[in-house]
C-alpha cells in the first residue's frame, strides 16, 4: 500500500497559500509537529502563533485574528478542536462567521490507530455537522488534502478539514480535481445500489465494488468529500437511480456520512440505507487496516451491506 502523509500535505498547501496571501497565519496549541509544520514556521516566523497546550485559547485567538482581517489556520488533533474547544468553535467562529480554517488530525479510528481512544476521533464530523455555518471536508488522501486546503482558503467563512495520521494510504493515483460542496460518482458498474463514502476507506469501497460486480450487483460509487454543505441534489439523484444505498466511513455511524445520507433518503427519496462505520462503541489500539477490519468496516462488510440493501429494496 502506497502511503503519503496528509499532515505534510496540509503544511505544503499552507505554505503555497501563504506565499501568495500575506493574510494567512497559523495558530497552534503546541501542535506544530502534528502537521509537520516547521517548514511553515521557518518560512513565516512572524505569522505563526503557538499559544501552548490550550485549544480553547487557540480557537478564540484565531477568532480575534480573523475579526481583524486575517485568515488563520488553526490545527491540532481533531477531537481537541471539535470537543475540547467545541463551544469556542461554535460561538466565536461559526456564529459570527469568522474566517477561521481548522485542520483536525487523527480523524477516524484508523488515523488514531495505535494511540487508543484518547487520540482516535470518530465524533468530529457529527459534532461539527450540527453547528450552522461551518464547511466540513473529509479528503480521501494527501493529494486531496492539498486541494481541500486550497479550496477552503479561497472560500469565505469557517471551515474544517479532516486529516489523518501521517501514514495515510494513497487513494487516487492521479489528481482528480476538487470542487468544494460537490459529491461525485467515482466509478459505476450499475445502479443496483449506491456506495457513498469519503476518506481513506474509499479504497475498500473500490474493492467491494469489484467483488459485487463479480456477483452480479452493479454499484455506483459516490464520493461525498464535503459533508457540509451537503450536495443534496446529487445525492437525491443517485438515490433515485439506485433505490438503495450503503454508506462507508471511518466515523461513528451516528452523525456523519451515514446520518447525512439517511436524512436525504428519509426526506427526499426513501430508500434502504445500510451504514458501515464504527457501531457506536469505543475502539482499541491497533494497526489501521486491522482496526477497520475488526470494527466491521471491511470489504466483506461493505459487500454484505450492499447485498442487504439490494435485498431490502427488492422486498419492499
Amino acid at each position, binding site marked *: 500500500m502506497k502511503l503519503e502523509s496528509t499532515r505534510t500535505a496540509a503544511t505544503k498547501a499552507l505554505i503555497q497559500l501563504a506565499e501568495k496571501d500575506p493574510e494567512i497565519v497559523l495558530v497552534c496549541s503546541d501542535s506544530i509537529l502534528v502537521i509537520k509544520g516547521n517548514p511553515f514556521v521557518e518560512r513565516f516566523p512572524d505569522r505563526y502563533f503557538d499559544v501552548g497546550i490550550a485549544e480553547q485559547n487557540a480557537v478564540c485567538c484565531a477568532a480575534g485574528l480573523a475579526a481583524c482581517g486575517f485568515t488563520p489556520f488553526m490545527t491540532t488533533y481533531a477531537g481537541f478542536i471539535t470537543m475540547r474547544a467545541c*463551544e469556542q468553535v461554535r460561538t*466565536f467562529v461559526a456564529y459570527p462567521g469568522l474566517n477561521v480554517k481548522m485542520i483536525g488530525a487523527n480523524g477516524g479510528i484508523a488515523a488514531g490507530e495505535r494511540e487508543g481512544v484518547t487520540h482516535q476521533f470518530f465524533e468530529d464530523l457529527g459534532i461539527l455537522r450540527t453547528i450552522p455555518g461551518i464547511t466540513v471536508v473529509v479528503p480521501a488522501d494527501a493529494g486531496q488534502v492539498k486541494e481541500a486546503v486550497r479550496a477552503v482558503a479561497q472560500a469565505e467563512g469557517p471551515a474544517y478539514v479532516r486529516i489523518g495520521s501521517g501514514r495515510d494510504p494513497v487513494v487516487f493515483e492521479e489528481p482528480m480535481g476538487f470542487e468544494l460542496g460537490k459529491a461525485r460518482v467515482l466509478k459505476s458498474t450499475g445502479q443496483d445500489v449506491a456506495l457513498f463514502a469519503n476518506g481513506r476507506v474509499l479504497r475498500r469501497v473500490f474493492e467491494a465494488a469489484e467483488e459485487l460486480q463479480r456477483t452480479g450487483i452493479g454499484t455506483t460509487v459516490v464520493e461525498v468529500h464535503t459533508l457540509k454543505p451537503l450536495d443534496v441534489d446529487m445525492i437525491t439523484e443517485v438515490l433515485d437511480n439506485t433505490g438503495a444505498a450503503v454508506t462507508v466511513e471511518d466515523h461513528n455511524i451516528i452523525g456523519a456520512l451515514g446520518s447525512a445520507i439517511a436524512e436525504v433518503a428519509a426526506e427526499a427519496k426513501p430508500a434502504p440505507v445500510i451504514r458501515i462505520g464504527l457501531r457506536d462503541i469505543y475502539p482499541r489500539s491497533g494497526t489501521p487496516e486491522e482496526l477497520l477490519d475488526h470494527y466491521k468496516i471491511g470489504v466483506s462488510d461493505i459487500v454484505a451491506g450492499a447485498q442487504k440493501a439490494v435485498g431490502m429494496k427488492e422486498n419492499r
Partner: protein
Amino acid sequence: MDERIAKLKKIARTLRQDVMRMIHLAGDGHPGPSLSVTDIIAALYFDIMNIDPSNPSWKDRDRLVLSKGHSCPAVYAALARRGYFSIEELPGLRSLASMLQGHPDMNKTPGIDTTSGSLGNGISIGLGMALAARLRDQKYFTYVVTGDGELEEGVVWEAMMAAAHYQVGRLITVVDNNEMQSGGPVAKISGLYPILPKLKAFGWHCQEIDGHDFGEILNSIELAQREESKPSMILAHTIKGKGVPFMIGDNSWHKRVPTEAQLKEALLALGEDR
C-alpha cells in the same frame, strides 16, 4: 481632568437610566452587572477609545471586547448615545426584530467588535486582536472588559499565559470586580481571590482602582497604555447595581426585571429630573 470627569459622570447617569428602561421594557436582562460596569464603559467609549461611530469597521480603531456579554445593555446604551445607531433602537432589546441581541452579536449591532456572552473567552479573543495589530504594525489598543466571576473559566488562564508570553502591551483588560456572580459571592463559590498576585506572577502589569472613580479609571488606563511589553490588568472594584440603592447588596438583581414602580424609583435615584 475635572471637565472630563464631569462629562463622564453625566453620561454614566444617562447610560444607567437607559439600562433600567431597556431591561424594564424588554422584560428581561441583567441590571446588576450592567450597572457595575457602566462607569468603565462610559470612560472607554466617551473618553479613552479612538473610535469613529460613523465608520464602525475602521481598521485602526481601538477594539472593545465585552467578555461579560450579559452586561451589554450598558454597551448598547453607550453605542447609541455615542452615535453608532439611534437611541430609538434601545427599547427593542432582546426582541425578535431588534439589532440588539440578548448578548452581543458583532454582525447585527454596529460598534460591537466581538460576539460574546459565553463567559471567559474575551481575553483570548483580545489576544488575537492584539497580535493582529502587531503583525500589521497598527497602533490600536484592544480593551477587554471581564467580570471577576468569569475568571474562574480555564480558558482565561490559558489566555493570560499566552498574552504574557507574547508581550502584547496593547492588550488592556479591565476587571469589573463586583465580587458577585450569578449564584452569590465570588469568595463563597470559588478560590479565585486574590486575583492580582496571580496576574503579577503571570507577568502582567497590574493595577487596582475604584471602578466608580473616573479619575482613577482614566489614570490607570493611561498608565496601562504606556506599558509596552506587558499586557495590563486593571482590577476595578465595583458595586453590583451601582446607582440604584435597592439593588445594592441584593444579588437577585443579577438577572431580574424592575417593575414599573421600581423603574420609577431607580430613575429617581439616578437623578432623572436633574
